[in-house]
């Protein structure tokens, strides 16, 4: 019998600890598939952030560094400069990448480090218990915005893909979602493209995945995906903001 579905080689056999319905598992799988398909498993080195995906190293079956909060792009820089043949990627959430690590991500992008960044944007701090993130929507209630995010005191949701796309150095900046099969296929392709560019030595690639957090949003997974489509995607519209080498057309 032909096997049509299996665990990617790049993923370990450790079961995910993520909450039911969480998108992390899906995106981990997409990363694993991309690395398998590009035959990069033996060269891959991941950098785990601080946040829910702090244990990402348990789920991928290759070398990993666990970085301080927000510093993954700097750690990845050190690894990639030391081992230029390695395929180095960071996997970061919105608190990690868009708040405490803003400087690190902007400057790694601006140096055009030949690394791949997978950015999970679910508009909330997951691991610390649902606090307001830089990407939290206006009016959205969280543990630290109990009256809803107020733009006059907490600013507006920050759009990292758009910001990074203004820089000259990055090769590929795109935003995707995994809320339905069509978007999932686009996300899979985007992550594949990002690693392909790195494999070819073409520079910095950045994939933002607009995601859900059912637990801290206080919604069921299906409702969360509906809420994402109705509320998140208008603020964080999917699309490709930069594709210097035309990888999407190739």
């Amino acid at each position, binding site marked *: 019998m032909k096997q049509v579905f299996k665990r990617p080689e790049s993923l370990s056999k450790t079961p995910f600890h993520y909450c039911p319905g969480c998108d992390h598992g899906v995106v981990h799988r997409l990363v694993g598939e991309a690395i398998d398909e590009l035959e990069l498993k*033996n*060269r891959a*080195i991941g*950098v*785990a952030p601080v946040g829910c995906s*702090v*244990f990402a*190293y348990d789920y991928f*079956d*290759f*070398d*990993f*560094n*666990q*970085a*301080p909060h927000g*510093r993954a792009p*700097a*750690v*990845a*820089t*050190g*690894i*990639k*400069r*030391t*081992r230029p043949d*390695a395929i180095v990627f960071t996997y970061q959430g919105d608190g990690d990448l868009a708040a405490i690590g803003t*400087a*690190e991500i*902007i*400057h790694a992008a601006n*140096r055009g480090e030949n690394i791949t960044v997978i950015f999970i944007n679910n508009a909330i701090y997951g691991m610390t218990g649902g606090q307001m993130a830089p990407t939290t929507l206006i009016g959205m209630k969280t543990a630290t915005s109990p009256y809803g995010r107020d733009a006059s005191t907490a600013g507006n949701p920050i759009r990292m893909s758009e910001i990074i796309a203004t820089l000259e150095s990055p090769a590929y900046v795109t935003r995707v979602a995994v809320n339905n099969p069509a978007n999932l296929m686009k996300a899979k392709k985007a992550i594949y493209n990002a690693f392909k560019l790195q494999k070819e030595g073409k520079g910095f690639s950045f994939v933002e995945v607009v995601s859900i957090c059912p637990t801290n949003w206080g919604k069921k997974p299906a409702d969360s995906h509906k809420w994402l489509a109705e509320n998140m995607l208008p603020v964080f519209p999917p699309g490709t903001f930069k594709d210097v080498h035309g990888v999407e057309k190739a």
Partner: protein
Amino acid sequence: MAKVLMKGNEAIGEAAVLAGCRYYFGYPITPQSELPAYLSKRLPQVDGVFVQAESEVAAINMVYGAGSAGARVMTSSSSPGISLKQEGISYIAGAEVPCLIVNVVRGGPGLGNIAPAQSDYWQATRGGGHGDYRTLVLAPNSVQEMADMTIEGFELADRFRNPVLLLSDGVLGQMMEPVNLPEPRDYDVNSKKWALGYPGKDKAERNLCSSIFLDVEELEEHNWHLYQKYQVMTDLFSEGQYKDFAVEEHLCDDAEIILVGYGIISRILKTVVEKCRKRGIKAGLLRPKVLWPFPTKAIQRLADKAANFLCVEMSCGQMVEDVKLAVNGKKPVYFFGRTGGTIPSDFEILNEVDKIVRPD
């Protein structure tokens, strides 16, 4: 090789290259700026990597990344910048990644000034960042030692899989002295089996650099493992292989008063000892060359013989606490310090000695 007249900061840079270091990540701050400037020129000549990071925080994390991938790697800064690096140093110590960190100490607290100081002793020797960890701290007192201890620092970092801190100051960084540079040595980025991307490992194996142990028992086990390593280091530096490397004693055997100081202060104290001897005062100098592990045993031995100790620092009194712990009440321990960037003169120290040994 013939002697070369070099600034201390530049000597560190050249010595790093000769030690096989090919990776430097840093951020500008006075008075260490000659070091990154030197390496930005030198490293590309040997196919090395120089990155001026966006912050001290980023720089130390690049060091963490490069070190975890097996590089012989360093960063440098001055006091306020070293404060910023503490987060990364804690992770590096926790994940047991070797690297060299240079602190060309300037006056603090806060922005302080750019003049030389020794007020980062506590930060350097107590760990500095969060958690139960230690860094090995070397304290050169000449441009020659800036070079020698840089090379030794890389070796010690690799041997113990621990960050090594070179604690210098503004004078040592800026001064020029003749240096004998050693022969270059090779370093293989694939010499560490635990490193990320190490090519020689079995397909089933994978390497992980991490300082997270969420399970309480696991973290306790890890912390005791670190503690045991620190104990081994302490033994090697107080009684074992590095005993002579760790401390310099000058005319201590018959001394009635022992002057204790490290770094540039120890040079001034040597002049004070000479002057004391000319005046009939039996003074000696004890100079810790390694500040952690502290040469407690060497001081304990002298506490049985000498009558008094005078600790001199460019701070309001930090190392003196370690001296007191070592002397343990056996003899009086006095302190004299200047701070804020002032360097004490041999005359004022001599005056302090007089007050102790000739109180009338």
